[in-house]
C-alpha cells in the first residue's frame, strides 16, 4: 500500500521512457501501447529497432505463417514509428521475401537511418538494393550473406565510420572503391568474402581492421592510424621459393605501413604469407607501440620461425604474447632445415614480455627450443600458460620444467 502519487511512470520524460523501453525487445516495447491512452505511442519514438528471433513467439506455426507475421510486424512498426531511427537491425532465421526487405530499406533511407544491420541466415546472397548506396546518413553498416553491387554513380558513404561485411560477394573494383571512398572509416571487418582477391586497403582514419578469408595479397596505403589488426588467411598456398628469391620481405612491406600498431593477430596461414621474401633481422623502424601479439605458427617451417622472431626482436614494448601451433597435414619440404638458434641468441635484445600463452604444442624440438628461448630472454615474465596439443606426451611437462628462467617470478602453468 503506497500513498505515493499514482502513475508516476507515465509522466517520466520521453527520452527516459525511450531509454527504459530500449532495454526491452521490440515486441514488449510495442505492447506497452495498450497500458493506457498515454502509452499508446510512447514506444513510437524508440530510436533503435531490432527485429530478431525474439520478435515472434514461435509456437510451432508453419514457416509461411511466421514469415508473414514478421512481415506484418515490421510494416506496422515502421509505419507507426515517428522521429528519427538511429538503428535498424533485421536478423531472423526464417527470412522474408526479398521484396519486403527492399521496401523496408527504401523506407529507412528516407528516415535516414544511422546504423543498418542485415543478417540473412539462409539461402542465396541477398542483393542489396541500390537505394542503400545513397543513404549518406550511415555511420555503421553490417551485412551478413549479401551481395553488394554499388551503382556506377556510387560515391561512397561520406559519414560511414564502421563497416562489417561477412559472407559477402563484391567485385574487386567495387571493393576498392568502397573502402577508399569512405573517408571517415575507422573500423573495418571482412569475413569470408568472394569476388575479390587483392586487398588494397587505403583508409586514412582506419583504426581497427579484422579480416578472415581467402586472398592473394594484401597491402596498405595511408593507414598510419591503424592500431588493432587481425588477419587470417584461410588458404594454404604453395610458396614458390625460387620465384621469390631476393625479393623484399612481405613482413617488412606489411609493418612499414602500420607504424602505430598496438595489437596484432596473425591467424591461419598469414604468417606463412608474411614470411615470404627475405626476412630481415632488424626492421627499418621498430614497432614501438606493439603491446599485444598473437601468432598462429607452423613450428616445422623455419621461415615462419624467422618471421616470428623478427617481430619479437623489433617490438621492444611487447607485453603479451600468444603462440598457437598450427599442425600441418603435409610433410615439410626438405629445404626447411632446423632453425639455427645460436646466431639468434648472440645479440638478442631484452624482452619485456610479461604474459605468454602457448597453445597446441606437442613437444617437438622446434617448439621446445622456442619456449626455452622465451623463458631465457624474458626477465620480467610473470606468467606463462602452456596448453598442450591432444597428442602431446608426458615428456612435454618434464621438458618444460627443465628450462632455465630469466625471471625469478615466472609462473609456468600447464593446462590439461
Amino acid at each position, binding site marked *: 500500500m*503506497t500513498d505515493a502519487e499514482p*502513475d508516476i*511512470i507515465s509522466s517520466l*520524460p520521453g527520452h*527516459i521512457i525511450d*531509454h527504459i523501453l530500449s*532495454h*526491452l525487445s521490440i515486441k514488449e516495447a510495442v505492447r506497452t501501447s495498450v497500458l493506457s491512452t498515454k502509452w499508446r505511442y510512447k514506444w513510437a519514438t524508440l530510436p533503435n529497432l531490432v527485429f530478431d528471433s525474439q520478435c515472434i513467439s514461435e509456437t510451432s506455426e508453419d514457416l509461411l505463417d511466421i514469415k508473414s507475421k514478421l512481415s506484418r510486424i515490421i510494416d*506496422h512498426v515502421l509505419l507507426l514509428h515517428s522521429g528519427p531511427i538511429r538503428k535498424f537491425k533485421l536478423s531472423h532465421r526464417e527470412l522474408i521475401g526479398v521484396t519486403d526487405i527492399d521496401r523496408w530499406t527504401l523506407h529507412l533511407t528516407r528516415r535516414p537511418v544511422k546504423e543498418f544491420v542485415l543478417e540473412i541466415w539462409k539461402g542465396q546472397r541477398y542483393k542489396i538494393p541500390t537505394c542503400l548506396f545513397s543513404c549518406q546518413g550511415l555511420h555503421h553498416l553490417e551485412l551478413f550473406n549479401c551481395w553488394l553491387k554499388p551503382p556506377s554513380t556510387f560515391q561512397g558513404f561520406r559519414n560511414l565510420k564502421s563497416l562489417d561485411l561477412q559472407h559477402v560477394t563484391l567485385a574487386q573494383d567495387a571493393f576498392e572503391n568502397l573502402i577508399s571512398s569512405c573517408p571517415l572509416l575507422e573500423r573495418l571487418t571482412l569475413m569470408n568474402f568472394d569476388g575479390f582477391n587483392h586487398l588494397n586497403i587505403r583508409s586514412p582514419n582506419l583504426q581497427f581492421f579484422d579480416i578472415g578469408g581467402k586472398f592473394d595479397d594484401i597491402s596498405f596505403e595511408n593507414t598510419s592510424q591503424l592500431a588493432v589488426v587481425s588477419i587470417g588467411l584461410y588458404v594454404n598456398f604453395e610458396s614458390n621459393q625460387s620465384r621469390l628469391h631476393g625479393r623484399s620481405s612481405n613482413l617488412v612491406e606489411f609493418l612499414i605501413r602500420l607504424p602505430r600498431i598496438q595489437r596484432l593477430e596473425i591467424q591461419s596461414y598469414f604468417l606463412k604469407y608474411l614470411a615470404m621474401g627475405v626476412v630481415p633481422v632488424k626492421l627499418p623502424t621498430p614497432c614501438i607501440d606493439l603491446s599485444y601479439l598473437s601468432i598462429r605458427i607452423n613450428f616445422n617451417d623455419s621461415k615462419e620461425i624467422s618471421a616470428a622472431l623478427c617481430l619479437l626482436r623489433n617490438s621492444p614494448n611487447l607485453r603479451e604474447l600468444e603462440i598457437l601451433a598450427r599442425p600441418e597435414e603435409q610433410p615439410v619440404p626438405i629445404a626447411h632445415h632446423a632453425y639455427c638458434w645460436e646466431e639468434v641468441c648472440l645479440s638478442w635484445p631484452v624482452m619485456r614480455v610479461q604474459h605468454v600463452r602457448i597453445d597446441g604444442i606437442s613437444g617437438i624440438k622446434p617448439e621446445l627450443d622456442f619456449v626455452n628461448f622465451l623463458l631465457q630472454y624474458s626477465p620480467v615474465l610473470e606468467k606463462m600458460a602452456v596448453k598442450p596439443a591432444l597428442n602431446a606426451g608426458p615428456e612435454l611437462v618434464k621438458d618444460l620444467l627443465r628450462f632455465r628462467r630469466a625471471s625469478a617470478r615466472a609462473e609456468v602453468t600447464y593446462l590439461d
Partner: protein
Amino acid sequence: MSKTVKDAIETIPTDEINSISLSLVRSEILTKVIEYCKKHNSAQMSDVDLMDWDVEFANVHYTTLFDLVLSANYMNINCLLDLVCGKIADMIKGKTPGEIAKLFDIKDVSTYEEDN
C-alpha cells in the same frame, strides 16, 4: 561522474564556489546518488563485485527508482541512468499489460486491442 556538476564547476569561477544548486533533487535521493558515485569512483571493488553491488543498490521500491532515474537524468550521470532504466525494464519484462499496469499503478487502462 555527474556531468551537471562538472559543467557547473567548470563555468563558475573557483573562488566563487560555495555551493552548487541541485534544487530538483531531494536530500534522501541525493544521499543515494552520492553513495553510488562514491562506490563507482573508488577502485576497490572488482568488476564482478561492483555489478553485484549495483544489483543490490537498484533493489528498491519503484518510486525510489523513478526518483533515482530523474536525478540521474538531471545530474547527467549516464551509468546510473543506465542501471536504473535497466532495472525498471526488468520489472516490465515478461509481464502482461494488465500486470504492468497494476505494478506501476497506471490509471486509465486502455481496452484498445493492439494487433501485435
